[in-house]
């Protein structure tokens, strides 16, 4: 039996180089203005999976992502770097999912890929920064979770030992398998795309993408079935409609504020008790703390 590693990844708007047009007037992210990228910590997660595969040739790495059609780009990206295959969870019914609904859909997809040994994801995505999806998925799957992983110290068919990067140090923990780990950005960066794999997998497409292609390489997909990326809908996952998308998402965004820091807003304080007391009052008063 192959050692199956499932990498959960997300395509996100590149919020690291935010320009003036990054937010729309209504306070939501202007996705059109930001390039869509492979969520950085998910790349660290992919590297962990691939480095396991370097050591265990019978391991296979499967990339799982949820998103619109174009999210297939990150499946190809993962294939260029060494992933064996990928699946795209895509359905209008998933639109508006918060972390609860997302982890529900992901857990169904992971179950569909059973038996699996390891699920690896990035700690958090740079668009939402919640760090909830990994842990929630593990809960739904009923498997142990190790968050903030920096390094996989050792691994065999039944057990994994992981070093975690915490705020004030590190911690080494072990767990039985299957388990889910979320990877921290201090872990090894992801390897580069590999030339020949890129040329081999660059034609990989989902059925929806193929329908929109202008160039017709139809025969290619009969000859090379590995170039077809499977798409899974809510129905394929036998998902309960109520738990999906907006209806499955208790998170409600009340208000979004565009905060621009300006130099004039800085204040100088002395180290006297009086000044500190005053600052505390202000912070409590504006509900920043307390």
């Amino acid at each position: 039996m192959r050692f199956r590693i499932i990498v959960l990844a997300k395509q996100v708007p590149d919020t690291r180089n935010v320009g003036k047009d990054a937010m729309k007037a209504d306070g939501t992210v202007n996705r059109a203005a930001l390039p869509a990228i492979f969520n950085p910590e998910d790349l660290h997660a992919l590297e962990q999976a691939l480095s396991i595969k370097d050591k265990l040739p019978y391991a296979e790495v499967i990339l799982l992502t949820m998103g619109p059609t174009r999210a297939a780009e990150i499946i190809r990206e993962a294939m260029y770097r060494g992933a064996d295959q990928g699946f795209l969870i895509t359905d209008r019914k998933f639109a508006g999912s918060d972390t609860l609904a997302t982890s529900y859909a992901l857990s169904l997809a992971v179950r569909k890929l059973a038996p699996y040994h390891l699920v690896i994801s990035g700690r958090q995505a740079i668009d939402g920064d919640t760090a909830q999806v990994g842990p929630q998925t593990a809960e739904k799957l009923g498997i142990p979770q190790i968050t903030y992983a920096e390094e996989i110290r050792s691994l065999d068919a039944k057990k994994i030992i992981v070093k975690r990067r915490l705020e004030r140090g590190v911690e080494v923990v072990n767990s039985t398998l299957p388990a889910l780990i979320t990877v921290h950005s201090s872990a090894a960066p992801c390897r580069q795309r590999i030339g020949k794999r890129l040329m081999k997998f660059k034609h990989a497409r989902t059925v929806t993408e193929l329908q929109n292609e202008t160039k017709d390489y139809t025969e290619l997909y009969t000859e090379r079935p590995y170039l077809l990326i499977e798409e899974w809908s809510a129905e394929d996952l036998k998902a309960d409609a109520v738990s999906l998308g907006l209806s499955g998402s208790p998170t409600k965004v009340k208000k979004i504020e565009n905060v621009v820091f300006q130099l004039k807003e800085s204040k100088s304080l002395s180290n006297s008790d009086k000044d500190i007391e005053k600052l505390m009052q202000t912070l409590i008063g504006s509900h920043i703390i307390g």
Partner: protein
Amino acid sequence: MENFYTDNPHLKFHLTHPLMARIVKLKESDYSQKDKYDFAPLDYEDAIDSYDKIMEILGEISGEIIAPNAESVDKDGAQLVNNQVKYAPGTQRNHDALVKAGLIGFTLPREYDGLNMPHVPYVMSGEIVSRADAGFANIWGLQDCAETILEFASDELKAEFLPRFNKGATAAMDLTEPDAGSDLQAVQLKATYDTRLHCWLLDGVKRFITNGDADISLVLARSEEGTTDARGLSLFVYDRKDNAVTVRRIENKLGIKGSPTCELVFRRAPAKLIGDTKLGLIKYVMSLMNSARLGVGSQSVGLAEAAYREACKYATEREQFGKAIIKYPAVYEMLTNMKVKIDGMRSLLYETARYVDLYKGYNFVSRERKLEADERQESKHYQKLADMFTPLLKLYSSEGCNQIAYDAIQIFGGTGYMKDFPIERIYRDARITTIYEGTSQLQVVAAIRYVGNGGYLSVMRDRSLLPVKRELEYLKGSLEKMTEQFARTVEKINEYGDNEYFEFHARRLVEMAANILIGYLLLYDANRSDEYALSADIYIRKGRAENVATVSFINNCHPKEVNDYKH
């Protein structure tokens, strides 16, 4: 994310030149490999798309790994440990990244685990890597040695050595000796055939060998006892695993410090003969040197690009007398001249690479089937163009990058003279380009033949027959006038029938020809994209003024005045 390919749109412009369709078709044997290799292109667009994507990987590795390592590599250099070369840690990381990305064996056929890329993208890879770290570009560029094995060695040697490149084997070409630098005919390293061991053994010393402790080395040696000229030399391949060569020292150089320059001692080192004896220098090394000169061309363009970017950035940020220095004519003129020169150098670089691709492409096809008469003619035509353009490229681009690095430091002022910015490293690294793989003076010796036999003149006249947009006609008019002026000047010098006089003016004549030929290249670039209209205009006007000055000097210099210069 820094990407040295995607941030420079000139590269894609040259990668998608109209001649590429023929080049790729030849290289891909009419797209016949797609059934055998799942990464072979399906058609022309697919091939260009693959090249584009491979360049993106290379651009990312260059921008994100090689460039950030360049400073430490320059500082650490390579070390000699137990008579072996240990790369600077940064150099090793660069090499490892390229090996892991599977990019070595760039031009090798797929049957030897290569990527089967044409020379145009390969030369482009050299430019990109050089912009990141010109010294490291030597280690990357020495995969040229694989081409020599592919072209001239037996099937047995090809099977033994070629697949190792993609796995990360490094290479070196061991030519120079203490008494054989520019004059390689004087090579003395001895090759003797041991009838008991059934192999060749090498004995002697090589000096100034770039990457001398490589896994695979091509060694020029004297196999014919008692000979003293080129006809006694053969080319061998030596495998580092045989452990019969010691590195005596690593030279302490002005620049390209990450590229170890070694003195090697061969003691009964077993080696295998490439091709036939006696053809080592006259055939195989000549071919290798042409590739190496193309390599220095790409290195020069990469260095120039790096210097120009540094200078532009600094000139925009640095304020004096209340405004950014880029606003002053003395500074912006320098920057624009740099840019124009780089456009010209780059155009010459990829034009030469295309010629090499075309004639090598036909050579490659001729192994499978007999070429048709018109194909043979094409092949010869492009080989001749490659021979004509290679020395011009090496001369013009290496001198150009030194000028550009010099001016870039000037723009930095005192700050540029300090070790605080990369520009001083670029300046030091650039200095070697006019020297190695044949000095500028030797490039003139190679190029002057085509001044004498009318080769360049006929290329200029052919170029003037190609149509251009109406708004560019005036530039073509200038180039035609420059061509006639060049022809008259050569004729006039020839009338004296004085060889020394002709040799005395050789560099001036070659540079006149370069101004015209590069002018034509930029003119046709401008014809293809408006982006180059300004560069073509400035380049041709400046070139014309330079040629007028040269002619005025030549006209005022009688053959007997050559004596005034004798030392």
